């Protein structure tokens, strides 16, 4: 019973962007995928869901509780997405459908997989809105995404991802686009909910400070390769890789300066 990624490789035409990435998560376990932008973290998550952008090809192996996912037709993967593996995306401004009320989006995976009746969906939506701590849930459900703050929208995304009770949850920098103060609150909510749900978590971030609060084990990615895989505690005390040391230094700096990290080194793109 686990989600196993083995020797995952992702190519765009002749360019290989992810090489031989392997890791494993069990339900209840909390894995952090950390690296700089362009290191292939997000693509790895998308590959698990079978949602890689057009032109990208994944090879290797991705096994969900023993079943191979790579190469499965989209129709079969659609039955898994949202139900057994869910994902929270990075950008709350664009991740929700601007033309639909929150009510129709917050319980979407549950509705798609749970065959809920209309009344049940409505009840579930309200329940979820309360669960993720949205203020005035009944009122907020009637609104459209643009009428919510970034933090509120991200709470909606988290609620939606958890709505069908997925065994595994992928979170792609869910707090990066938010204000620092909001970031912390959302991270707390997220942490609690995932703990309660018992889902296995793959948390993607570039920020070791955030990772330290959420994950137990860390996989460090650089240029699409795993350069270090260790318990977060080890990474915080004695990082083995060059990137690990740099991330630690950056995390220490942010502790004093709550601003987005700017990097000197450019990555592969």
């Amino acid at each position, binding site marked *: 019973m686990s989600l196993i990624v083995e020797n995952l490789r992702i190519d*765009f*035409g002749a*360019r290989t962007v992810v090489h031989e990435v392997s890791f494993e998560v069990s339900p209840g376990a909390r894995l952090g995928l950390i690296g700089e932008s362009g290191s292939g973290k997000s693509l790895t998550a998308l590959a698990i869901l079978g949602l890689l952008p*057009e*032109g*990208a090809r994944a090879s290797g192996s991705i096994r969900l509780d023993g079943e191979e996912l790579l190469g499965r037709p989209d129709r079969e993967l659609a039955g898994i997405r949202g139900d057994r593996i869910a994902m929270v995306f990075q950008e709350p401004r664009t991740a929700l459908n601007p033309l639909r009320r929150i009510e129709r989006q917050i319980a979407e995976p549950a509705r798609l997989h749970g065959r809920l009746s209309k009344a049940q969906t409505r009840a579930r939506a309200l329940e979820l809105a309360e669960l993720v701590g949205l203020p005035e849930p009944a009122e907020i459900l009637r609104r459209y995404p643009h009428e919510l703050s970034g933090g509120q929208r991200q709470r909606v995304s988290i609620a939606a991802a958890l709505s069908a009770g997925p065994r595994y949850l992928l979170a792609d920098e869910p707090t990066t686009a938010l204000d620092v103060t909001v970031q912390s609150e959302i991270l707390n909510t997220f942490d609690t909910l995932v703990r309660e749900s018992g889902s296995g978590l793959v948390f993607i971030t570039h920020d070791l400070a955030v990772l330290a609060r959420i994950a137990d084990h860390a996989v460090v990615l650089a240029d699409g390769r795993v350069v270090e895989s260790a318990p977060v505690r080890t990474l915080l005390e004695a990082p083995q890789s060059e990137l690990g040391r740099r991330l630690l230094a950056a995390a220490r700096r942010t502790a004093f300066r709550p601003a987005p990290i700017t990097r000197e080194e450019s990555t592969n793109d």
Partner: protein
Amino acid sequence: MNPLRKLFRHPAGLFGAIVVAVLVLSALVSLVWTPHDPVFTDSARRWLAPTWAYPFGTDNSGRDIFSLIVAGSRVTVLVAVGSALGAGILGLLLASLGALTRRWVREGVAVLIDVLIAFPTLLIAMLLAAAWGGSLLVVIVAVSIGFGVNIARVTRPEIRAVLAADYVLAARASGIGSLGILRRHVIPNILPVLIVQLSWGMAIAILAEAGLSYLGYGAPADTPSWGRLLSELQTYIGIQPLSVLWPGAVITITVLGFNLLGDGLRDVTDPTLADPILSETVPASNAPVSPAAAAGATSDSSARETEPAHITPVSPDATEAASISETPETQEGTR
């Protein structure tokens, strides 16, 4: 890379350039020679089937349809070039008025552009035809107004953007007047956009000429024109239905040619597209090469060296396109 070469690597652009070149060539040749006299009538040879001597057959009065089409290209070129000139001048004038002048003039021009956009070109032409009687000049003036407004709408924001750029402010500060700025900075910057628009505008002009000549308000009765030929052949559509195929197909291919040339020029001159071979491909570095693009790349090595080499000087578009590449460089220099 030389934009002309880029254009010839662009399959659609190459097709457009060839069509336009053939059109211009046939218009020029028809001034001195056509296979048969296009207006000579001979009832003995009416409705001849297509043969080598009469490739598209003959019409009800025995005129050679192929010669009529070749001769008709003169009207097409005249209307296309005339309309492009008129639309370009009017468009730039309106756009400059809408960007350079005092605020109330600018607002007024903006409203005028919005209203004129709602006037379909054909209605403008009918209005003018009611006042002046139908003629090719009416067609040209109508398209100039109808499409000129379109050009004004597209180029006005571009002009305003150029005017707000730092190097223009610097030029202003150093005492260069409005006209100088227009000539040195504004025109070179909007030239790529303008040329693309004009290519599309010529396509519209050709359709407008065909439509108006069909209605009887375009080319005069004794002048061979594609639209007029289409309407004459339509009279006998019950007798010889297939004869309408020729002028219609020629108009379609020509319009398609100008449209594709415009598309090609846009892709070649638009710096926001990384490697614009064909709009079919995804404009990203990781896009797989589409089969069409690959076909274009192979076919151009032979075509580039031979045919278009002598065709290009004839085509006004192609020669103008050559100046596009200068734009960014001169801009760097003047900065």
